[in-house]
């Protein structure tokens, strides 16, 4: 049954093993084909590369440091821990790497309007930012519940000139925001580009987003070779849809000595039913244009995901991650809300860095892993974003007591 999909379709473009594809309404197909063409032509154009380099350096602030976290290393008592500081990017997370690339692409395609979804608000803020920069009209769809959780990010987007539309359908989180963004795109496809924020959705989005985020791994590779004269033994990144993780992992996939770990959000625990663990807790199906691991019931209805971090609160995991799981190249695991909160506090105290709740999942897993590794081994954490946006959530979760 599901097997039929693998067998007959794997030759199609935009497949990662049996995952991926273009499961979208016909009205969007032409836009996807155009996008693919525009993207390929941009890749072949040295001017596009120059523009990207220029904005990444002078506007985003790349390259981001690869920081040796000496205090955290001592605390963990094992492998040397490095942090890839994506939190130091303009707007506070890795999201802008992709938003910038896609906004430049939108201008090349002559599209004057942009639509995007956002969960935590990081992608929305990054997209609103580049739209301000390139004078693009920007509409952001955001779940009602996420708007409540991330009130300040909503205001930031509005300051940047974006229109934020509240999505009331479903549980009012990221999945529902993607649905509405897709509906908006179908209706306005002639003059609008959809800046999808994660390594998800129909081809060519997973490939394009991954390539715009690859700079994380490319820089890391060069930096660790300079600092340690060797590749790391392990790399850990958090995974919602999976854009920071795929960007970090991709340049290392061929290096078998580097163990790769993707950390999903276990929320209140995988057994509780309140989580976002698509690999262990889901099964393959189609959502938002791609065939991928998905939280769903026996009837094929997609279930709501849960995590304390709005950015990991998505019921699926990008198609390339699904493939990397199937081939066994990446180990997918998970950390609970509680674990992430602990790690957030730990990193804040030991290194003076408040990580985003999303990234805190990776920190938690990496610290535990490091403690079991030898002192001459090296581990890199992708610190995908900073925690400013989460301070209120964290205060509530800790009952107002930062010293707990």
């Amino acid at each position: 049954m599901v097997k039929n999909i693998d067998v007959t379709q794997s030759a199609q473009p935009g497949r990662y093993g049996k995952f991926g594809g273009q499961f979208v309404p016909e009205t969007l197909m032409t836009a996807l084909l155009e996008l693919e063409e525009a993207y390929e032509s941009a890749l072949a154009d040295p001017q596009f590369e120059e523009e990207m380099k220029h904005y990444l350096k002078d506007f985003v602030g790349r390259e981001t440091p690869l920081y040796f976290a000496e205090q955290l290393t001592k605390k963990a008592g094992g492998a040397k821990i490095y942090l890839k500081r994506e939190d130091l990017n303009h707007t506070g997370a890795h999201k802008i790497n992709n938003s910038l690339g896609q906004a430049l692409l939108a201008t090349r395609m002559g599209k004057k309007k942009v639509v995007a979804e956002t969960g935590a608000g990081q992608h929305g803020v990054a997209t609103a930012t580049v739209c301000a920069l390139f004078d693009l009209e920007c509409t952001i769809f955001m779940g009602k519940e996420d708007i409540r959780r991330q009130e300040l990010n909503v205001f930031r987007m509005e300051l940047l000139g974006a229109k934020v539309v509240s999505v009331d359908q479903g549980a009012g989180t990221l999945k529902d925001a993607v649905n509405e963004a897709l509906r908006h795109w179908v209706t306005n496809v002639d003059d609008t580009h959809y800046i999808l924020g994660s390594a998800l959705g129909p081809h060519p989005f997973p490939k394009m987003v991954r390539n715009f985020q690859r700079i994380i791994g490319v820089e890391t590779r060069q930096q660790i070779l300079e600092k340690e004269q060797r590749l790391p033994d392990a790399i850990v990144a958090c995974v919602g849809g999976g854009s920071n993780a795929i960007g970090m992992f991709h340049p290392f996939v061929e290096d078998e000595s580097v163990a790769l770990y993707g950390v999903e959000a276990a929320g209140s625990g995988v057994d509780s039913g309140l989580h976002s663990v698509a690999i262990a807790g889901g099964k393959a199906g189609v959502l938002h244009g791609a065939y991928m691991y998905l939280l769903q019931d026996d009837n094929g209805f997609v279930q709501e995901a849960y995590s304390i971090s709005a950015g990991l609160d998505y019921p699926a995991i990008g198609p390339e991650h699904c493939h990397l799981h199937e081939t066994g190249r990446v180990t997918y695991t998970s950390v609970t809300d509680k674990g992430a909160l602990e790690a957030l506090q730990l990193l804040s105290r030991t290194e003076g860095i408040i990580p985003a709740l999303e990234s805190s999942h990776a920190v938690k897993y990496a610290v535990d892993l490091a403690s079991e590794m030898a002192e001459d081994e090296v581990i890199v954490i992708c610190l995908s974003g900073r925690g400013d946006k989460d301070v209120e959530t964290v205060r509530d979760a800790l009952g107002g007591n930062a010293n707990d």
Partner: protein
Amino acid sequence: MTKHQLTNAIRSCAERGDKAFVPYIMAGDDGLATLKKTILFLQEIGVTAIELGIPFSDPVADGPVIQAAGERALAHGVTLRSVMEEIATFKEEIKVPLVFMTYVNPVIQYGLEQFVKDCRTNGISGLIIPDLPLEENGFMKEALAASDIALIPLVSLTSPPDRIKKITASAEGFIYAVTVNGITGVRDSFDEDLGVHFEKLKAISPVPVLAGFGISTPAQVQSMGELADGVIVGSAIVTALHQGALETVKELVKAAKSEARIQKVTK
């Protein structure tokens, strides 16, 4: 019924001077208990075929009216399985072709082989799967190859000529020609170039061409009907049925009949 009977049902409308009228209903809106009554009512008032929507958690091709109907159906616990079981209880009484409109994921989870088997047993004539474009429909075509169930393709205003050729070449049942860019739902106006679009489409299509999306009034049924071989009406039917406004449904259906068309021409 078979895919040929579906095509023939539409063609025989033309022979009578009528246009085909295909209402969309959400299966289990107000619960599955009313499904039989609704289907029998529609066939009684002379619809050509019925498009039966299966509720889904993430209906990205649907506008607010059908989304709301889907949410009501989901709240009643309606699933692809329960719809299939309900149809089985009165399939002998269904005389018009029945077409399922479902997103692809419920079909995959149902199990492709079992789904096709149950569709055949229950006399389903066709499938409309809005998130299964040409690029992805290979596995479904294969699964349906030995059956007499049509995989009805959608053609949009954004589909370029070469693509339309490819889509129509393998079309079965009828072509679902989307009349607007966007999602299902009520519209005030349509693109002026639609006439040209439909002329080209009808010229190359081996099967009839039905217009759908945004058609909500008897006047629109008539004007769109003139362009195409018939119309599909969704949101307006769903709203009327939900409100129990059966007269509204009858008027929409009547607008596709030859008497109404003649009246319009002579006016």
